[in-house]
């Protein structure tokens, strides 16, 4: 009981439980039982953690645990503040859902990789909890790397596949390079603050050059993990090739750890330089637009979702950028709106992106494919999934009455306020950018939902697909309900984010009501319910009318084709072709046309159309091959001639002699 009353203890205990949850599976001979045990333990841990989070949001202060560490990095300190709490909210929710979902998505009785997968899922979640609680740079690094590496093992679950291998390697290299940047960050923290322990908020002055290096390092290390452009290149492949529930965790939770890292690093400093805010703002805007443009051009279900994660991260960073700019220009409304927008969107994205990825898992399970253009007409075959997917799509487009709108509303209000009051309202341009992003998001997700679920099946697999079991539907139901509830009652989200905002912006007093005067989250409830009521009323009236009138059914008008086939339907690629052309510069789609000499193409000629990954395919890969070429010249030094090797020795001797004098 004493333990339960202490949120910090609960959190640590939950972390330990999560880490150990998969352990039985590695040794137990009965995999199915082991998987169930793991799932139940994970759910229990999540509940425990959620309970602790509720306590913390209720105002209970978490204790500070200090272990004296034999390693020469100072004590290992664990503690929790409102910033960590904010990120813990989606963490436990999604982890619990995923634990249940995996039972039927990756059943141990069919998949022999289940034990390994379950183990690493637990470790992954636990590592993220520790990342949020660690207050010692090196401890943080350890948890961070455990998180990153276990994510690697998770996404290479199907390591026989070459695609999976490649994306896994790209991910591992990217994340490890980022970790090196974090090495720099925390070493400099040690050399400036004299200890690896995180300093108190705003304890360090950002005036020193070291501080600038630290911020840049954080931007590289954490921004890369968050998938901020242009360090996003690892993200689509990784998310697409991981098992869907893992993608849900990676996209919904792991990317946020990068955001957390940047927020945490910034919180160390006082008088943050103005360039940082603008930089984050610009990078965020770029990521948002470019990310969603990429998403629109994708043909792979999960790549599309992954790219839209880049977009959402971009939106979050727009919020952070607004807030930092606001701190510089001393406009509190910008600060609060920016922070609220970012923080609420962090929670929201955790909800609806996980929901969508879990949904995509059901689709892959049902149709055995990730190609959008091979699906279709699934709404009839998996009604529940299609409903949840629709909710998720509406939410991610930021449309009322769902939760996605709330976060963006704050950003809009902040931007427009800046437009009204600032002498040079550059930040106001966020509003049209967000509008553009919203429009593109609508295109993307209309395409996704429409092509996948509506129309008639394009392949036999799609035609024979089936609804998933309750263990997969249940978690999605929870998340969808979350999206709807928080969308209808934005106050809920505001209250969740408020402590973090006031902690981060250093605002005392009743933040919620004060923000309420600026940002219409209270009237929003009224409007949303009005909208819903109206829609239901209309529906009722319409159905009533239908029942009285004659009705007939027939096939869709086939555009005067004699024998229309499902293959003639509009595909996802054709749907997004127009917008992809408009944004060709950002997306650079790859088109390979057959050369047409005669009126008809020769038999067997094909037209290839694929979205490319600019940074990875056009920049990094060539650079790497050049470097490799250069290295191969240097390698000639090891030519196998013994007497020259002896010459090396004497040359070294000679050089050292010269060095001396």
């Amino acid at each position, binding site marked *: 009981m004493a333990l339960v009353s202490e949120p910090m203890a609960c959190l640590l205990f939950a972390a330990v439980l999560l880490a150990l949850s998969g352990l039985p599976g590695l040794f137990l001979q009965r995999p199915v039982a082991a998987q169930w045990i793991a799932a139940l333990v994970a759910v229990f841990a999540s509940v425990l953690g959620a309970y602790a989070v509720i306590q913390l949001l209720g105002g209970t202060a978490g204790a500070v645990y200090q272990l004296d560490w034999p390693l020469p990095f100072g004590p290992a300190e664990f503690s929790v503040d409102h910033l960590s709490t904010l990120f813990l909210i989606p963490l436990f929710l999604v982890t619990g859902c995923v634990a249940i979902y995996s039972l039927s998505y990756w059943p141990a009785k069919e998949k022999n990789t289940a034990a390994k997968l379950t183990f690493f899922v637990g470790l992954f979640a636990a590592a993220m909890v520790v990342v949020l609680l660690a207050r010692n740079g090196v401890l943080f690094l350890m948890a961070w790397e455990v998180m990153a590496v276990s994510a690697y093992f998770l996404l290479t679950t199907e390591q026989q596949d070459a695609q999976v291998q490649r994306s896994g390697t790209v991910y591992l290299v990217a994340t490890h390079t980022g970790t090196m940047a974090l090495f720099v960050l925390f070493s400099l923290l040690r050399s400036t603050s004299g200890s690896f322990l995180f300093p108190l908020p705003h304890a360090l002055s950002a005036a020193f050059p070291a501080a600038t290096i630290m911020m840049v390092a954080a931007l590289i290390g954490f921004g890369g993990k968050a998938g901020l452009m242009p360090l996003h290149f690892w993200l689509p492949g990784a998310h697409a090739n991981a098992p869907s529930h893992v993608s849900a965790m990676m996209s919904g939770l792991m990317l946020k750890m990068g955001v957390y890292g940047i927020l945490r690093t910034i919180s160390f400093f006082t008088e943050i330089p103005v360039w940082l805010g603008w930089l984050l703002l610009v990078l965020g805007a770029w990521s948002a637009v470019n990310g969603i443009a990429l998403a629109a051009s994708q043909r792979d279900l999960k790549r599309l979702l992954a790219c839209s994660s880049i977009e959402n991260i971009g939106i979050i960073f727009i919020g952070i950028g607004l807030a930092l700019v606001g701190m510089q220009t001393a406009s509190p409304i910008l600060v609060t709106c920016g922070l609220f927008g970012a923080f609420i969107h962090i929670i929201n994205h955790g909800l609806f992106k996980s929901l969508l990825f879990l949904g995509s898992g059901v689709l892959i399970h049902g149709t055995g494919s990730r190609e959008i253009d091979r699906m279709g007409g699934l709404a009839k075959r998996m009604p529940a999934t299609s409903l949840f997917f629709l909710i998720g799509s509406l939410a991610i487009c930021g449309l009322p009455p769902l939760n996605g709108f709330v976060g963006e509303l704050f950003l809009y209000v902040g931007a427009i306020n800046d437009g009204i009051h600032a002498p040079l309202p550059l930040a106001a341009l966020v509003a049209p950018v967000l509008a553009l992003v919203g429009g593109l998001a609508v295109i993307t997700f209309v395409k996704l939902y429409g092509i996948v679920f509506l129309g008639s099946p394009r392949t036999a697999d799609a035609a024979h697909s089936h609804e998933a079991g309750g263990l997969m539907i249940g978690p999605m139901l929870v998340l969808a309900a979350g999206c709807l509830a928080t969308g209808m009652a934005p106050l809920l989200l505001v209250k969740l984010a408020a402590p973090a905002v006031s902690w981060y912006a250093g605002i005392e007093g009743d933040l919620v009501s004060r923000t309420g005067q600026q940002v219409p989250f209270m009237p929003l409830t009224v409007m949303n319910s009005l909208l819903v009521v109206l829609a239901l009323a209309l529906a009722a009236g319409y159905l009533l009318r239908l029942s009285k009138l004659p009705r007939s059914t027939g096939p869709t008008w086939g555009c005067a084709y004699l024998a229309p086939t499902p293959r003639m339907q509009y595909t996802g690629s054709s749907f997004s072709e127009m917008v992809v052309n408009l944004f060709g510069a950002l997306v650079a789609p790859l088109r390979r046309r057959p050369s047409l000499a005669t009126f008809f193409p020769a038999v067997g000629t094909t037209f290839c159309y694929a979205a490319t990954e600019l940074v990875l395919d056009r920049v990094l890969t060539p650079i790497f091959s050049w470097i490799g070429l250069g290295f191969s010249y240097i390698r000639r030094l090891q030519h196998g001639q*013994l007497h020259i090797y*002896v010459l090396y020795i004497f040359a070294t001797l000679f050089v050292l002699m010269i060095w001396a004098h």
Partner: protein
Amino acid sequence: MNSFADQLLVLVMLINLVMLGSSRLLFSIRAVAVQGAILGILPGLIHPFSGHLAAITVGIILIKGVLIPYLISDAVRKAHIRREVEPFIGYVPTLFLGAIFTALAFVFAEKLPLAPEHKELLFVPASIATLLAGFLILTTRKKAISQVIGYLVLENGIFIFGLLLTEAMPFMVEAGALLDLLVGIFVMGIVINQISQEFSSIDTSRLRALKEE
């Protein structure tokens, strides 16, 4: 006495040059043997007699003058080879280099702060010159055997320097050094036999399978 020692040291250096110039392996081996024997005599000339000294002398002459040359020539006999093939740098250039190095050794030795009683001796230049000669042989000759010889000359050079310290230093270091030398050469001999079985020639330029491309 010291003047005699100096003359011997000059002889040692001449032997270096001879070895640099000669292509016949057995000849080089004998030369090394002679060099070793001379090294054995030297300590007796510069230091007052003692048991320790006698032991060293005998040991050196036995090992450097007899045992090791025997081992190597045995290996040569097993491998049926007479002469060194054309080295990477011709004999004449090698000789020339050797001469230059010897000269440099003298220049260099002048700069070194020696203990007063060693000032007028040729030990330091001789040791450096021999060292460099060994290095030359090691880097120019192709045959494994010649490289062993080069290694021996190198060791001799080091040894000449060591002689300055024979009385000052505890006996066991030289003993250990000699022992190591012996074992090392022994193992090398074995390896050379293996090579000659594997490759039918001990041309180390053939041993070039292991490399990066």
